């Protein structure tokens, strides 16, 4: 299958971000890479259609996050924090490892809601759409996730407006 130039550009730009998003759900870097690659395979297969969308990158992230949520439900145990975030020490980004460790303690759907809302910057109705649940359920996932994280990290919940 020939790889369109636009697909190549999108892949180079988005791949690492898709791995990052999937890993916030799975906390397993190797598995997240597999899932990101699966998502890009699907994107390439559907390229003729998806390339017409406003944000093809949003489509591939959405597929990856759905795959990640499903995989997370089947996870029997989490890998170690070092295996989950192998680049944390060398990466230029300031990793908040305490926060990542706290996110690991959330159930998969709450982790996915956090990734969609804070990484992808999606409003709650689109978080609900990706998770395949009602808007009120997505709000509950986010509310509980924030509450649990605030408790674990001794931060304030505040009055968040989604």
């Amino acid at each position, binding site marked *: *299958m*020939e*790889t369109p130039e636009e697909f190549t550009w999108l*892949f*180079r*730009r*988005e*791949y*690492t*971000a898709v791995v*990052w998003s999937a890993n*916030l759900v799975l906390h397993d870097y190797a598995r997240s890479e597999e899932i990101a*690659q*699966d998502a*890009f*395979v*699907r994107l*390439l*297969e*559907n390229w*003729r*259609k*998806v390339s017409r*969308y*406003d*944000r*093809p990158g*949003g*489509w591939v992230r*959405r597929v990856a996050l*759905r*795959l990640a949520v*499903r995989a997370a439900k089947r996870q029997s145990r989490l890998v170690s924090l070092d295996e989950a975030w192998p680049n944390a020490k060398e990466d*230029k*980004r*300031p*990793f*908040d490892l305490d*926060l*990542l460790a706290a996110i690991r303690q959330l159930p998969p759907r709450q982790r996915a809601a*956090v*990734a969609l809302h*804070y*990484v992808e*910057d*999606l409003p709650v109705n*689109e978080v609900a*759409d*990706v998770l*395949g*649940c009602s808007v009120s359920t997505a709000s509950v996932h986010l509310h509980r996730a*924030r509450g649990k*994280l*605030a408790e674990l*990290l001794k*931060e*304030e*919940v*505040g009055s*968040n407006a989604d």
Partner: protein
Amino acid sequence: MLIDDRLRAALNWDPGNAPPPGPDLLDSIAGRATRRRRVRVAVIGMTAAVAAAVIAVGGPWTMSRSERGGEPVRPPNQSSWTPQSIGATPIDQHWVSSNGRESRADRLAALDGTGLQQYGPEIYAGYIANTTTDLQFGSGDVDLSTSVVGSGTKGLGLGDHKASLHGTYTVRGHTVQMRLEEVAGTTTFRWRLVDDQGSQRLELTFVSTTSRTLYAAPAEVFFRLWSVRPFYLWG
């Protein structure tokens, strides 16, 4: 510090600064996409061959039955071929529902004789009317969504969703069994691929469901109404 601020500071990240993946990875993805496409083409070809064989065997059998005055005749052996034996199924595709001309009455007729007619109008109005369906089967995962026709693109580039269901599926012979995350239980359809003037058409016929409630009505109502319209390959 508010947890909201800490989450935004730590997680919101511009991928533009990330090192790009190597070219080998792109080649690997293109190769996998090509292989998946070849497998699908092969499976569809095998399905057509099996269908032709069944017709060739079943045709004479049907005649012999009538010649014997309708006495019971042992049916021909079922094909032992199962699509999953080569790792993919003939329906592993991205399908979209046709721009069918089914009227409201045509859709609601799918509930005739089920005793569920009373639920039809509400489910039809809420999730079926004026919608198109995206249906993706692949790698054991199924995504099903209905979107308002003409709702255009927004956000992620998809239309306004009415129904959005996701789960896993298993194909056995000519039935497909779905297990959806949003509703407990399994739902079974018979599937049929039809060559429609050179393009593939997928027809699903509701068989049964063990799911109880979906969208505040018996789950069977949605699945029966939804599967009236055939599906075509996207693009």
